[in-house]
């Protein structure tokens, strides 16, 4: 078969090619470039090979940050996913004023910028003027996010739950709304329990949106930066110093460009790896039900 060559087609992909190049490929390659150099100043760079990677991988503080990060992200998923599903199940269906109101209320936290969320909670949790802090103090709970590590960690977690559970709930709600009412009728006629309806109809039908919710919430929480930065700047001690915090300290605070670049690449690969693992697990669970 004769294939007609038409090179003009290349012109059509040039815009996309340029956008991707400038927004993703070139910056990433710059980072790769930095990661293999020792940089003293403009024009004073030396090739060091994989040395930075070796330093980064052996960095104890990075290991601590990574463990803190993993625990944090898992906690976020463990709370936000079930909570989001529960909220979605409890939401009113159909087209009514009640539905619209619920949707608007749920969407509100999603509209608030990250640093504002941080500031809100920073003030909210203060012992002297914050509603939450003052209430805790009044009922005798010792809560102080500025010098208690656990309190600070929990505050960042609650902040994220407050900010992002809505997203999970809205996604699940969309999934639930796509189930034809006949499914529920059929289950009713079958005499299926509420649990059976959830387990065998709602959950499988929500699988698609749940994959998206888990991936989004995992990646986002794994890259959390603004909230702890605004709240305590990563403290007290290192208790809320997550990977991003540590990376920023290294790159902007100490101006350790080479090391920070190597760190970035490792960071990127970790996120990629975890996302891949989650994706595989969730899609496999679905297939497993075939057997």
């Amino acid at each position, binding site marked *: 078969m004769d294939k007609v060559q038409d090179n003009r087609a290349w012109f059509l992909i040039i815009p996309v090619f340029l956008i991707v190049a400038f927004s993703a490929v070139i910056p990433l390659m710059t980072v790769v470039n930095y990661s293999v150099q020792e940089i003293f100043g403009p024009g004073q760079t030396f090739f060091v090979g994989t040395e930075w990677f070796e330093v980064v991988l052996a960095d104890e503080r990075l290991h601590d940050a990574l463990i803190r990060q993993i625990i944090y992200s898992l906690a976020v998923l463990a709370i936000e996913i079930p909570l989001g599903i529960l909220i979605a199940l409890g939401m009113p269906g159909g087209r009514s004023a009640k539905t619209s109101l619920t949707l608007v209320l749920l969407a509100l936290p999603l509209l608030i910028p990250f640093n504002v969320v941080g500031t809100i909670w920073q003030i909210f949790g203060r012992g002297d003027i914050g509603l939450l802090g003052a209430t805790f103090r009044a009922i005798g709970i010792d809560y102080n996010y500025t010098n208690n590590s656990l309190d600070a960690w929990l505050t960042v977690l609650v902040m994220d739950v407050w900010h992002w559970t809505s997203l999970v709930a809205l996604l699940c709600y969309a999934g639930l709304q796509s189930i*034809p009412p*006949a*499914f529920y*009728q*059929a289950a*009713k*006629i*079958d*005499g*299926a329990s509420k649990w059976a309806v959830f387990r*065998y*109809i709602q*959950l*499988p*039908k929500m699988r698609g949106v749940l994959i998206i919710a888990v991936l989004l919430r995992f990646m986002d929480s794994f890259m959390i930066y603004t909230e702890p930065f605004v709240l305590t700047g990563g403290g007290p001690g290192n208790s809320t110093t997550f990977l991003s915090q540590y990376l920023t300290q290294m790159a902007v605070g100490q101006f350790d460009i080479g090391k920070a670049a190597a760190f970035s690449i490792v960071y990127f690969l970790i996120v990629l790896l975890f996302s891949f693992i989650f994706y595989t697990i969730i899609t496999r669970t*679905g297939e497993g*039900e*075939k057997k």
Partner: protein
Amino acid sequence: MTLTLEGVAKRVGAEQHLHPLALELQPGSFNVLLGRTLAGKTTLMRLMAGLDAPSAGRVLENGKNVTGASVRHRDVAMVYQQFINYPAMTVYENIASPLRRQGKDKAEIDAKVRRTAAMLRIDPYLERLPAELSGGQQQRCAIARALVKGAGLLLLDEPLVNLDYKLREELRAELRDIFADGKTTVVYATTEPQEALILGGNVTVLHEGRMLQTGPTSDVFHAPVSLECAAVFSDPPMNVVDAILTNDRVALSDGTSLPLSAHDRNLPAGPCKVGIRANHLTVLRRNERLVPIKGRVELSEISGSETFVHLRHGGTTLIAREDGVHSHPIGSEIQVYADPDRIFVFSTAGQLVAAPNWRRGALRNIA
């Protein structure tokens, strides 16, 4: 089971979805609910199933009043337009699910599932998920799930609508045999007169929330009590022409005059409406008694291996049937033949007065 509806009606807000009706379904009978969209078929089925409570009247199962009882305490199974199966369960588990809920032992479940699957010819796919089956197989799985339950009342709400033509024909042909076990009372809703005729049994004609007629399918087809009923139970729609009856002839408003036949002789003279089904208005002249009508072709539509010719004649549009596939140029002249022995005579108010095959007393006139 014997299902009895006594004066059952459904009103939602100010809207009367179903006007009061009485109906008795015999054990093991096959009952078709025939009506167009929004006729109230699904509403009626939901009342029968107990998914909704009627706003008036009583529902009895074997003489026991179950009007307010929840669907969980009813002995029903249902199949829907959409293919409803548990998405994450295999076909086997789907079919087994009602039995498991009944607490049957393993061997019995296995035997029943395999027997039912074999009956619906989905036994090779027991280990698959519903999403991995074709539409027809998915619906077979849903029917198997409903059958295996062994309920006294089986409701099928337009089960074949979402299937393609070929699959629909195939499954429809099997359905009668599958349901002929003699115990289950089957109710089958459809919009298609053809389907009702093929399935047989009894038919209940619904129109805009009212029951027009009920009885053995062929009786209702041969003697629709009113023009409304004839319109629902006729595809293409019955030709209806205003006419005047005299002693020996009936004069149609388009100028055609038909001789009277055995069934419409001795009727009081005066104005009436005459109904002629498309298959009694033919292009082929089958015998000498047929009366020619000349008209101009407005449209000819091909359905299967027949052609329906719409022709304009004397101010009315008639639909005639022609065997085989033909195309008639629009506007061309055509001669069709009306069979005077097969016409229906209705009163001017639309009530049936005479029909060629009217077995008097065989019908219950509702309207």
